[in-house]
């Protein structure tokens, strides 16, 4: 349960940061923060509850929905790649620099982020190449 709640941490931080920036700039704190949370909740519900895999692979080759379906499955596949790469990168960092916020922790995190984007770029290139070969 706690693990699931922790997943909402970044969204809560983002919403709080948006409200803080509005407040710091001297303007009115609008409803942007709760709208951010509401959109995240709505997207999470849509992703979790809808039978995406059934919908995505249903369109026939002559269906006008085919391209949309292919695009959606491509986005889904790439999102899963990003997730897997992020998990591996964070795991490697945790093992290499186990003492949080100590010497070398922030610097290595910066390099980890650069390495992460480089690897994601390579994975995207490979995916694009495989599509070119298959389509």
């Amino acid at each position: 349960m706690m693990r699931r709640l922790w997943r909402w941490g970044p969204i809560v931080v983002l919403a709080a940061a948006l409200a803080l920036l509005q407040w710091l700039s001297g303007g009115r704190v609008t409803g942007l923060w709760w709208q951010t949370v509401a959109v995240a909740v709505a997207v999470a519900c849509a992703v979790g509850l809808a039978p995406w895999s059934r919908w995505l692979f249903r369109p026939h080759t002559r269906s006008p929905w085919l391209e949309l379906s292919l695009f959606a499955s491509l986005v889904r596949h790439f999102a899963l790649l990003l997730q897997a790469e992020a998990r591996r990168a964070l795991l490697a960092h945790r093992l290499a620099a186990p003492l949080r916020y100590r010497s070398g922790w922030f610097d290595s995190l910066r390099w980890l982020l650069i390495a992460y984007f480089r690897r994601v770029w390579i994975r995207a290139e490979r995916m694009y190449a495989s599509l070119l070969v298959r389509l």
Partner: protein
Amino acid sequence: MTSVLEVENLRFSFDGRTEVIRGVSFEVRPADSLAILGASGAGKSTLLWCVLGLLPARGTVRILGAPRTRASLRHVGVVFQNPEDQLFMPRLLDDVALPLINRGVEVEQARTRALSLLERLGLAGACHRPASQLSLGERKKAAIAAALIASPQLLLLDEPTAELDRRSARSLTQELLALPMSLVLATHDLELARTVCRRALVLRSGAVMAEGTVCRILDDPALLERAELI
């Protein structure tokens, strides 16, 4: 003598229903070496992740006699199947020195120790290059160096010779033989297991099928056949 690693009745399932690790127990004593053998999909890597606490398994894991915690995990070095995952700094030297720097050792002192370790592994010439420019065999050795630098008492290696050519695999095997600490190798490379390890544990569908000395296990072709290792 306190065990370096004790695993008792470890169970894990990805979906909460089908168990992929089913009541695994084993022990690793100081300076001992254990090969976890099994065909692809037998649960070797998953078992290692569970031992490290990276997957939320049920059961008991004790490191050096104490329950597994963040602190006790500092005595454990890990080498992933894909060394690219572990090497992300701009220079190999920084990759290897990072665990020491993080533990509070002076940067220059950490780099000197990292360089001497890389020299021992024959990688001193590549120390100023990023790991991405090295061959797979060199990257595997570099990942071992990064795991060894903090002098762990236990080293866990996931498929160390996977995807390596015979020459690189032989070179890596020689390096593993020279290591003084306890070793746990998850592999389906029977030759590596016979050369490096004293004991073996055979996994099939996430459960222990057999355990004993490497010679006894590897000289039983019927067992290896049942475990889909030959």
